[in-house]
């Protein structure tokens, strides 16, 4: 019943994009350009215009997906078309270039196209991998409820510690203040290791030592021990949740600005072409 943006309507837009590129490749192969394939031939112009139109249409997704009252197709059909036509753009622009590359403004447009599509590919990868990971990590909890549980555990730990000794209370308070889950951007994107807090681990070790030596407070100490470890497990999950969500979305911060840059580069490219032509 759920129809994903990848398989939407039985890969309808994959079929459309494939047929379109197949036709264009055939044209290209049989096209007799003089002196060699280039953007200035009739096929070159056709490919250029087609590429530009597709580019503009693809970028309109940012507007369409916020037009909640719009009845022009579901957002999911737009997204499905977006990924397949976007992929086709690599082939269309490559054919448009006629494989003539040089370090100039025209090549900048081509290069940006590649970057935009590649970030889009990452997005496709992220969208297919991370939702499941987030679900597996969070279960029925949300990040807010996990934070609430951490706060609750902190309060209970403080209450238990207070009944044992003022010193322990101070240590727990210090620990609570030092427990910050704020992974760096680099860590969010690239690191695969669990959240680690050495203060917490050493405090847990100290408590284990006390359990063995302070028989009078054994039950309370082991309760405290469990609370802290429970909190540690939650902090690890929160940390992963932050990272997974970042990985799910960070590429958009490249994809969208690069698209804007691409539109600018293409505009200059078109302007220059027509300026010289004229």
């Amino acid at each position, binding site marked *: *019943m*759920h129809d*994903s*943006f990848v398989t939407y309507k039985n890969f309808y837009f994959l079929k459309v994009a494939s047929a379109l590129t197949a036709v264009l490749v055939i044209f290209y192969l049989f096209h007799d350009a003089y002196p060699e394939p280039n953007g200035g031939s009739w096929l070159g112009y056709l490919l250029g215009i087609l590429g530009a139109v597709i580019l503009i249409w693809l970028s309109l997704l940012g507007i369409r997906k916020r037009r909640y009252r719009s*009845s022009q197709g579901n957002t999911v059909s737009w*997204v499905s078309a977006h990924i397949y036509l976007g992929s086709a753009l690599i082939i269309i622009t490559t054919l448009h270039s006629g494989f003539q590359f040089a370090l100039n403004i025209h090549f900048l447009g081509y290069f940006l196209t590649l970057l935009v599509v590649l970030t889009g590919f990452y997005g496709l990868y992220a969208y297919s991998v*991370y939702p*499941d990971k987030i*679900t597996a990590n969070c279960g029925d909890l949300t990040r807010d409820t996990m934070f609430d549980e951490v706060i609750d555990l902190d309060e209970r730990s403080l209450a238990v510690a207070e009944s044992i000794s003022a010193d322990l209370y101070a240590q727990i308070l210090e620990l609570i203040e030092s427990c910050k889950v704020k992974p760096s951007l680099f860590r969010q994107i690239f690191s695969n290791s669990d959240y680690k807090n050495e203060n917490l681990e050493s405090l847990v070790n100290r408590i284990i030592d006390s359990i063995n030596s302070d028989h009078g407070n054994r039950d309370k100490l082991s309760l405290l021990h469990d609370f802290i470890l429970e909190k540690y497990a939650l902090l690890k999950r929160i940390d992963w949740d932050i990272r997974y969500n970042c990985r799910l*979305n960070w590429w958009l911060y490249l994809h969208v600005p690069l698209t804007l840059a691409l539109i600018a580069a293409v505009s200059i490219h078109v302007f220059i072409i027509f300026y010289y032509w004229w």
Partner: protein
Amino acid sequence: MAEHFNIIIVGAGPGGLSAAARAAEMGESHLLLEGSPTIANTISKFQKGKHVMAEPAVLPIRSKIAFEAGTRETILDTWNENITKINANLKFNSEVQKIKRNGNVFQIDTKDGQYTADNIVLSIGIQGNVRKLGVAGEDLEFVQYQLDDPDEYIDETIVVVGAGDAAIENAIALSKNNKVIILNRRDEFARAKEGNLNAILSAIEKGSIECIYNANASKVTNIGEDNGAEHRLCFEVATKEESIEIECDRIIARLGAFPPRKFLDSCGIEFPSEEPNAVPSVSGEYESNVKGLYIIGSLAGYPLIKQCVNQGYEVIEFICGREVEPADESLLWEKIKHIPNVKNVNEGIEIIRSKVPTFSSLTPLQLREFLLDSDIYKADLGQTLIEYNDYTNTFFSIISGEVNIRLTPDNPNNTVSIGSGNFFGEMSLISGRRRSATITAGENCIVIETPRRSMNKLINSVESVRRVINNTFISRAIKMHLAPGLDDEEISEVISSATLSEFKPNEIIFNEGDAGDSLHLIRSGSVTVSKVIGDKTTTLAYLPAGNYFGEMALLNDAPRSATVKTAVATETIVLQGKEFRRLLSKNPETKKKLEALSEARSLSNTTKKSGQGTDIVEFMMEQGLGEATDVLLIDESLCVRCDHCEKACAGTHGGSSMLDREAGPTVAGLHVPTSCRHCEHPHCMKDCPPDAIHRTADGEVYIADNCIGCGNCVRNCPYGVIQMAAVSKEPATPLWKQIIFGIDPYPETRDKNAPKKAVKCDMCKDLAGGPACVRACPTGAAIRVSPEEFITMKLQS
């Protein structure tokens, strides 16, 4: 010498004020006596800021005393203003102690005066006579029988006694700042409104209010301050098992009120029974058995403020010998004039009573109230009254002419007719499901169309109406689902042996292997059918209202082949095996059909794999989807947590989202966010004072603009999907800011004091293309489906 008046009105409540205003307006000599120092004593004792309703909504107000729904304070201010302006003769602090008839005049004694009058209007209500604890210490300083402002008390231990709405509302309001214990004489809160019931039970569960059930007050004593005790009072309470002492600072008893019997007896007023709640009987002109003594308002059995206000006006007109049309006369005439050859409302009422047997047992007054909510109209030949598969739920009675019921949805010629005196539309009313047939008007067809709420009210309050409708439902359900083509006579034996059974949610109706000799037809609610296959319980089917089960054991004379459990509160019609088998033996055709169906079911059961689809079905039933008609389901493996569903909801509903994507449970990658499921029998509709919640023909349950913001639906919804929100008219964030800076389309910077109304999912019924949440989902993770379809698919795949 005592001062003489033509009319003396006793009690300055809404009825008394309105009577005095009318008398003053017409220049009649009159006096209004009020025992307390203010007007409307009962209403001024309502909780501070309480929203007072103006029901029934369609009834016009004909008094100089203005009245419309609003807070306690605004209503009292308006009345004070009205009564001063009209120069009514009003005397406060004059409690009437005795009324005596001396020849043609009444003699009235108050604390410090004596008056005589030709006529008396008693509008004293019943709240002046509150029921007290009835034990020693009931009048101690901190034992009180009303609560004005719950915020007045802070950090006290307060015992609230009572189990009605007033007690519950007080307890909940007080629990914000105090420790509250509620004392209930019984083991449940049976008298409370559904919303209050849910609120008190959840407060007890959360621990914010402690409840002692089966508890009776025995004694209240003061605790001497010099004892250094923490609390002021000691409240002795007897429960079933033991006697306990509760130390507290305050006792608030809300035990209702009853008519001041002693006083009324002394005036010579007769009561129809000895019941303490009985009210004196009065004539159509509000006159009691004592000539010249009139009774209006709640003391006469009319508790609604609007009724009191109108009666105050009318009683003065009657006393002065003028004829008054009832307030609803013109409204009713607008409806009744569609009946041919009828000259006035009374004639129309009589015709309806004689032509429609269902209503013959109603009193004219009951029928008037009922018709006020209904529509009467002449339907054109061929006009569709009910469309097959629509979600409408009105009830039709035929006054004259006939209607044609289409037996097969797609063949307009295969019909049967029913004529004058019959009714239809009860199936959807009872089951909460789609219409089961298309019904069109025949020649000269005049019908009464009644909305769901008024019909349910009538079914619940008039036994004979309930019986007739139930029997018809059973007979039609049997004919439709089990024995099509048979006539009433052939199935009469089965019908007379049929009984109604009610089951709680998650109750097992029967277990696999049980002996069984009956067949169940689901009247409302839904069930799941399961069986142990391999070593796992495997769900075989989900059956909503209108389906039947239990036929296999009955046909094969074998033990039950599967376990049937309710998904939600369910009612079934139980048909007894002996009678049903006899019916089948007489009708081999019907038997053959039923056997074929049963065989198909049994075949599909044997192909089931152990445990297949069961997790999902069980999970969905746990979420209460057994009563849903449409549910938002998110595939977690596709959901990229972009919250576009929520943003789209807010974007199409004035800035407030009616769904919470993150909240809600998840099983096997399927997430049920907190969002409306458009229940078959919507809980939100149960107690909506302005009747603002409706269902469209397509099934969407929505809240209309006449919502008064009382919050009953929010409390009644068990799924927490209705919110109170100020609907924003502010423009959203410009699109370019949303794209470049990622700013929310509707940032939360709204006026905190803006009036709030209830908002809920309306499935974007006014948007082309369907629900915005689903259409805005970029990855196809969100869908809205009927649980029935979804489960059937899951069980098959």
